[in-house]
């Protein structure tokens, strides 16, 4: 019995550890939020305990039976007046203090530091398009669902939406910020330690809202620069015959209408950029790990995995699936 209770109690706490948790803060914005959460919890818990204590005390100290309710004792009256005035005063102070803390937290959250890196993140049904901006236009590139950032640097994120309202949320790094059609919002993220943080769309946006995830990978500056230089480069033409065949299949099928692979003729801009899809950890917006099998499964039956998704089922011969998946997996 005891074990069951312990297990049930540990369930809500398990949500506070690590992967995608607001309370496991790894950046300044998330830390502000976590601090506020703990201050509010502590203060409100204290208030609750004190109130309950006073209530219990009142229940135990019962009035003497048969006493005249209209008879008052001036000494008791005076004492009660002082207690109640103090309680009212303390309520005011508590509410004002919490309001002040909340205001201070908001100011910290919305103040932007100058950073070297600016990203344009566009929410789409149901994936994230990520463009790394750069004053040198040939260093601008687009990727999807995976953000790499250098550790310890503030990164400005401009948020837009292409269809409906989405909300950008990396619980370990920052609070939620909506991506709204026709306007641009901004949010800043910063990671203090290297790590992989999961993000999630936090505004219901249609059938596959729950499968609209992303990863933020914070890494040392050198690793980040290496990753960025690789992403800027075009896809290398495959060397082995199987992948060459896969490329031919990709370019002759409807894939090219929506997807882009820089360095080939595929130039569609309405679905995730696949130039380096093999280097990303997940496909389908954080839904499946990038393996050859998962890529094949996704191509053959996207609606079995994410019902309602925009990716159509296309006609493929059985012997075309393997080379195609192999080619895409090889786009590192």
């Amino acid at each position, binding site marked *: 019995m005891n074990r069951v209770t312990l297990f049930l109690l540990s369930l809500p706490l398990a949500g506070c550890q690590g992967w995608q948790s607001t309370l496991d803060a790894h950046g300044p914005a998330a830390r502000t939020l976590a601090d506020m959460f703990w201050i509010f919890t502590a203060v409100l818990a204290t208030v609750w305990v004190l109130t309950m204590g006073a209530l219990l005390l009142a229940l135990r100290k019962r009035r003497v039976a048969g006493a005249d309710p209209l008879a008052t004792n001036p000494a008791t009256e005076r004492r009660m007046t002082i207690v109640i005035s103090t309680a009212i005063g303390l309520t005011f102070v508590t509410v004002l203090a919490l309001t002040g803390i909340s205001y201070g937290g908001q100011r910290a959250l919305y103040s932007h530091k100058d950073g070297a890196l600016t990203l344009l993140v566009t929410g789409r049904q149901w994936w994230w398009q990520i463009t790394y901006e750069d004053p040198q236009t040939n260093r601008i590139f687009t990727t999807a669902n995976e953000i790499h950032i250098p550790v310890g640097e503030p990164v400005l994120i401009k948020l837009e939406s292409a269809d409906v309202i989405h909300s950008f949320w990396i619980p370990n790094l920052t609070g939620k910020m909506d991506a709204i059609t026709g306007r641009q919002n901004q949010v800043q993220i910063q990671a203090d330690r290297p790590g992989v943080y999961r993000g999630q769309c936090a505004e219901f946006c249609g059938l596959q809202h729950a499968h609209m995830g992303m990863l933020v990978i914070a890494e040392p500056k050198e690793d980040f620069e290496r990753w960025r230089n690789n992403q800027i480069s075009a896809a290398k033409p495959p060397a082995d015959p199987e992948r060459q065949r896969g490329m031919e299949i990709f370019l*002759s*099928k*409807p894939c*090219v*209408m*929506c997807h882009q692979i820089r360095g080939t003729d595929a130039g569609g801009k*309405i679905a995730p950029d696949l130039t380096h899809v093999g280097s990303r950890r997940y496909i389908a917006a954080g839904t499946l790990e990038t393996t050859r099998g998962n890529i094949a499964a996704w191509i053959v*039956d996207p*609606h*079995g995995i994410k*019902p*309602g998704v925009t990716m*159509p*089922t*296309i*006609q493929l011969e059985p012997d075309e699936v393997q080379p195609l998946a192999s080619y895409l997996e090889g786009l590192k």
Partner: protein
Amino acid sequence: MRNLLTASIAVLILTACEREDREYRANPVTAETEEKIALSPLSGGPSPPVERRSGIGQGYEENAFHVAQGKKLYVWFNCNGCHANGGGGSGPPLMDDRWTYGGQIENIVQTIREGRPNGMPSFRGKIPDDQIWQIAAYVRSMGRNVRKDVAPGRNDDMHPAPAEQRRPPGEVIDGGQISPSAQMPQ
């Protein structure tokens, strides 16, 4: 009696769902349907040209979801690059009543599949077949050829100017000329 009433009301509500009924998977994966259309009434021999229409188009035309998908794909696949928003540009207009290659949905589907002389490219193998049907259904809706409750609304950005209540306050200018209609004897 009461049960019968409840049941009939439930049936009435359910019929409304067909308007935007949808399947997640095109099942089986859409192979090209066999459509035989005649582009002209002329044919060799005494009999008129033989046409064969699969009838699948009705399901697309009478379904709000498919027409709305078609509207999205129309822009995604750059149909508006030549046909603009239906008014035409380097391609012919689509919202008028002139149909060079026939205005039935099968004719439009074949036009998209096969391409047509003077610039319309063939999208066979580039657009999955069910999406071609969706685009054709949307093209039909431009010329008011689908049911009113199925047709999608016009985009906000297609309005020539913002609505009056969204514009800055206007200026009031006193004076000016009396309009001819006001000068007429009543």
